[in-house]
């Protein structure tokens, strides 16, 4: 069972690395969104420091959203997904593998680059650490919930806009706790409570979302 998950992860990560431009464009989008805000609201460090947690997290949400359609689309069009659905393993396991692979190529790089953006917003060092850690444990939930949306909109007209309409409201809890953790750390408070909730959302998302996404995929494959 575990081998199925590991195999799907290895395959998807290898496919993504063969096309590094896709991964990089998501990252640059993230940096671009974050650097638009200082241009919009002005360069005062006080204001920017106040805005940073929310802006960086909203950027992470949108960047994840951008990479979601790729999760199933190619496998859907070349028939791989059908083979996965016919395989003698639960489809949910394959979706779990794809979700984790999506996190590895989109969520993890976001976590690595988020402190850099935090520096631009003049966040204190301890908040930078928490920011990286919060994005690290929060993005699995984004990949999990996003998998459901990607599966539901598979092969539909205007899938991208529809996907954002479905997924963004469900991302709100991650945004609240993610930005809350950084806010608390920047204000000198203990961010542990927020981080625990983020971890709970990630664990819950990875445990339950693949099965809902698998059900949605079976509907799309009919």
């Amino acid at each position: 069972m575990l081998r199925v998950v590991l195999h799907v992860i290895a395959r998807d990560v290898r496919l993504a690395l063969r096309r590094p431009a896709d991964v990089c464009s998501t990252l640059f989008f993230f940096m671009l969104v974050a650097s638009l805000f200082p241009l919009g609201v002005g360069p005062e460090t006080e204001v920017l420091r106040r805005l940073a947690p929310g802006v960086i997290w909203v950027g992470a949400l949108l960047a994840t959203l951008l990479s979601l359609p790729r999760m199933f689309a190619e496998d859907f069009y070349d028939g791989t997904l059908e083979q996965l659905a016919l395989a003698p393993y639960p489809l949910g396991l394959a979706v779990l593998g794809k979700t984790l692979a999506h996190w590895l190529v989109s969520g993890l790089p976001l976590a690595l680059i988020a402190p850099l953006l935090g520096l631009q917003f003049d966040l204190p060092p301890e908040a930078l650490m928490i920011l990286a850690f919060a994005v690290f444990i929060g993005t699995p939930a984004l990949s999990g919930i996003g998998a459901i949306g990607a599966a539901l909109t598979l092969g539909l007209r205007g899938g991208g806009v529809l996907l954002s309409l479905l997924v963004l409201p469900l991302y709100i809890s991650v945004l609240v706790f993610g930005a809350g953790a950084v806010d608390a750390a920047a204000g000198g408070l203990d961010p542990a409570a927020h981080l625990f909730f983020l971890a709970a959302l990630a664990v819950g998302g990875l445990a339950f979302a693949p099965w809902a996404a698998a059900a949605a995929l079976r509907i799309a494959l009919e």
Partner: protein
Amino acid sequence: MTAHERRTIPFEGKNGNNARMTSFTHLYKFSAPAAFYPLAGRLIPWFWGLAALFGAIGLWLGLAVAPTDFQQGEGYRIIFVHVGASWMSMFLYLIMAFWSAIGLAFNTRLSGMMAAALAPTGALFAFISLWTGALWGKPMWGTWWVWDARLTSELILLFLYIGFIALTRAIDDPRRADRAGAVLALVGVVNIPIIYFSVTWWNTLHQGASVSLTKSPSMAAVMLWGMLFCALAMWMYAIAVSLIRVRGIILERERHANWVKALLLDRAKH
């Protein structure tokens, strides 16, 4: 009674050995669109009538009988619309999720049609709730909108309704649309408590001086009755409108079925 006997009862029911079982199986037949269509048609006038009756009682209690509030003056009377609309917006999402679950579990066609018929009414009530809330907020708090936990979650509920409607309208095949919408509605209903909880948490952290919606002064009994009757009227209205909509959906989807052709021919003759 053995399991085998129990299973065979619906077919032997006509011999009168178990009248209750027969009445239940009798109800099952309405899960077929062809049987539900005329039933819905017969029920709709009753629900309109009840909606008008409850609405009249509720508005009479609310606008004529209920006293002026000593703090809020006459402005508080918007509560008679606002509270019922908020209740209905939340309740209809649950009903929608219920029909979605039934549809996914038993693969019944009518369930998906019911969910699709309920969604626009739910979205309408969520919108009315937000709109009347803004109208109420302006004179009471001096602002159209505050990022209060309840307002924010109601807004998110409206987004969830819109997402459901957008998804089901984007899929051409009605069966796939129903099932995809059902998965979304169930994911949404699991998420609503999490979203509400996180928004409440966020609100208590961020909002400094603000209004509290939760500490309402104890309400006079007549106001409560007015509110309840208005909510009942909206409930009956929601049922009537959803039944009308589901009848339209049935006709559209079953247009190739013989009973629809017979029905339409029959209607054309008169």
